[in-house]
């Protein structure tokens, strides 16, 4: 095993490490430096201006608007998605009741599991474009077409600042649920059958079974789901860009940090300022993940 070992190791690692360091590590490292410059892309050398970008950030209304939107996305999307997905996963795995102690899903479980997952394999952008037509303000939209058909007033889903963000929340949930149904199903199938059997014999009904058996044993998976959905909530760029009017509008009602970073960098050439927003986004994400893991930490239940 020793002959030619080092040349082999170096040969195998050189290319992947080179690509990775150039396109992933170097940009991340540079982002922190760029955030402290006033670079606008035109001057040859970015000028170091310390924390000025961050001071400007704190007084930027649109930045705070974006942060507030992340707050809403962070609460609404994971809460609703997890609640729906948990209920469906429970129905699909245990909802059919016990046949000789063995829990089965309801009739058609396989079908539902396949269909619910559909949106997950579609690009977020494609989903966004589809929904921009579904939400179309006139009869040509799927929803308004249906509303006017039953004699209701059309709703301006994306143009009304009060409901625009919620319309985006709905799309995010629509796309995410299937994935978490599968994720929770995987978690539920690893719960030993004997536990359900014992619970059935002791007379636990379905509600009891859900709250006292399934939920505690699924805690780790739930935690992972929450972190995933939270991180996804920090990255709603694609959907906002294609679905919202005016890239984050109306009047900033749907904007997110990703949108502002993209706009500042590529529309206004404010590379330094955009990087400062990137750094802010990074710390928000890390704080969120750390907090979630901390708050939801509890004794793992031994099986």
């Amino acid at each position, binding site marked *: 095993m020793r002959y030619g070992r080092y040349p082999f190791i170096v040969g195998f690692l050189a*290319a*992947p490490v080179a690509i*990775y360091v150039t396109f992933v590590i170097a940009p991340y490292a540079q982002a922190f430096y760029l955030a402290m410059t006033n670079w606008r892309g035109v001057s040859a050398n970015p000028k170091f201006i310390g924390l000025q970008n961050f001071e400007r950030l704190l007084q930027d209304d649109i930045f705070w608007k974006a942060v507030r939107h992340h707050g809403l996305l962070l609460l609404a999307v994971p809460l609703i998605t997890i609640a729906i997905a948990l209920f469906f996963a429970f129905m699909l795995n245990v909802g059919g009741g016990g046949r000789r102690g063995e829990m089965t899903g309801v009739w058609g479980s396989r079908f539902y599991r396949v269909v619910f997952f559909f949106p997950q394999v579609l690009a977020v952008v494609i989903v966004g474009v589809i929904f921009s037509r579904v939400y179309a303000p006139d009869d040509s939209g799927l929803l308004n077409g249906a509303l006017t058909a039953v004699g209701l007033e059309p709703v301006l889903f994306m143009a009304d600042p009060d409901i625009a963000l919620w319309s985006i929340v709905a799309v995010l949930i629509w796309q995410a649920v299937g994935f978490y149904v599968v994720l929770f199903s995987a978690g539920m199938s690893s719960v030993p059958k004997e536990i359900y059997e014992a619970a059935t014999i002791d007379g636990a009904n379905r509600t009891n079974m859900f709250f006292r058996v399934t939920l505690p044993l699924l805690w780790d998976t739930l935690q992972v789901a929450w972190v995933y959905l939270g991180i996804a909530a920090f990255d709603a760029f694609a959907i906002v860009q294609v679905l919202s009017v005016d890239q984050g509008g109306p009047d900033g009602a749907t904007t997110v940090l990703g949108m502002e970073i993209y706009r500042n960098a590529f529309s206004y050439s404010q590379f330094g300022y955009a990087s400062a927003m990137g750094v802010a986004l990074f710390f928000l994400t890390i704080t969120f993940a750390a907090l979630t893991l901390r708050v939801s930490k509890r004794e793992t239940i031994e099986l």
Partner: protein
Amino acid sequence: MTTNSKPIAPAGPAKSTARPTGDGGQPTGDGRRAGRDRRHSAATQKSEVRLLSGLGHIALLVWAILVIAPLLWTFLASFKSNTEIFLGSPFAIPDSFSFASYGRAWSEANVGRYFLNSVFVVTLGTAGTMLFGSMAAYVLSRYRFFGNRAIYYLFVSGLAFPVFLALVPLFLIVNNLGLLNTYTGLILVYIAYSLPFTVFFLAAFFKTLPNSVAEAAMIDGASHTRLFFRIMMPMAKPALVSITIFNIIGQWNQYLLPVALMQGQGADQKWVLTQGIASISTAAGYEADWAALFAALTMSILPMIVVYAFFQRQIQNGLTAGAVK
């Protein structure tokens, strides 16, 4: 149904004289009584199951319709004329199934070009990711050398950073290398950003492969490289398949990276599908060829649904594998 929050405990001889409790009698008794009680509780349970699975069924069905309706509507609308889209009821079957809008989308709106661009970039991107990813993962998981852990954590740390943080410098680096608006640049960037998860996932898998086979091959005179390609790669096939599908879907659906790296004059010839359709969608506001937009959408949805139908199990496993770990 009243709740019965008895602790879960096996029915032991000590409880053999216990009477059924008021709310329907739970079997904790001895063999003779147990049969009757079980039948009884089975009956109450059955009605409870029926009610719940009834409600649940409705919810499941409603969600299935919510998922399918927009997709079906897109598909139907792609055959309609503009007047039909605006004046007909949303779920009406088109007057005639005309493929004209597909022709317009494919050639005039360049969807054909975008589609082929996507296929090209994703094929090379995924192939490169799998080759480099498995090489790095293999060496990092099965060889001990100085710096091994450092390199491993360098790769895995990429999982924690939001891509947006890197966006601006990445644009500048790619620009400085003269790779802006080139397939090479985009493919290299796809590979780079797919490496963290690929290395993380495959390293864990390579670790589980048995040593004995590797040793036997070495004794037979196989080189390290040969050992990797002839023995280890075939043994790792299940993991490789899962992660390949994972990467194909991820790179096919990528939007942010191409939008940032394929822009400027003349770049629209090299756009990938997601980018192209997003731009058609914004342009459609003025040109208003909705049928062509729906045709373009259908062309981007159908391949994914077909691939998904075939590899449904692997895709679900692949996409959830990272999370369940």
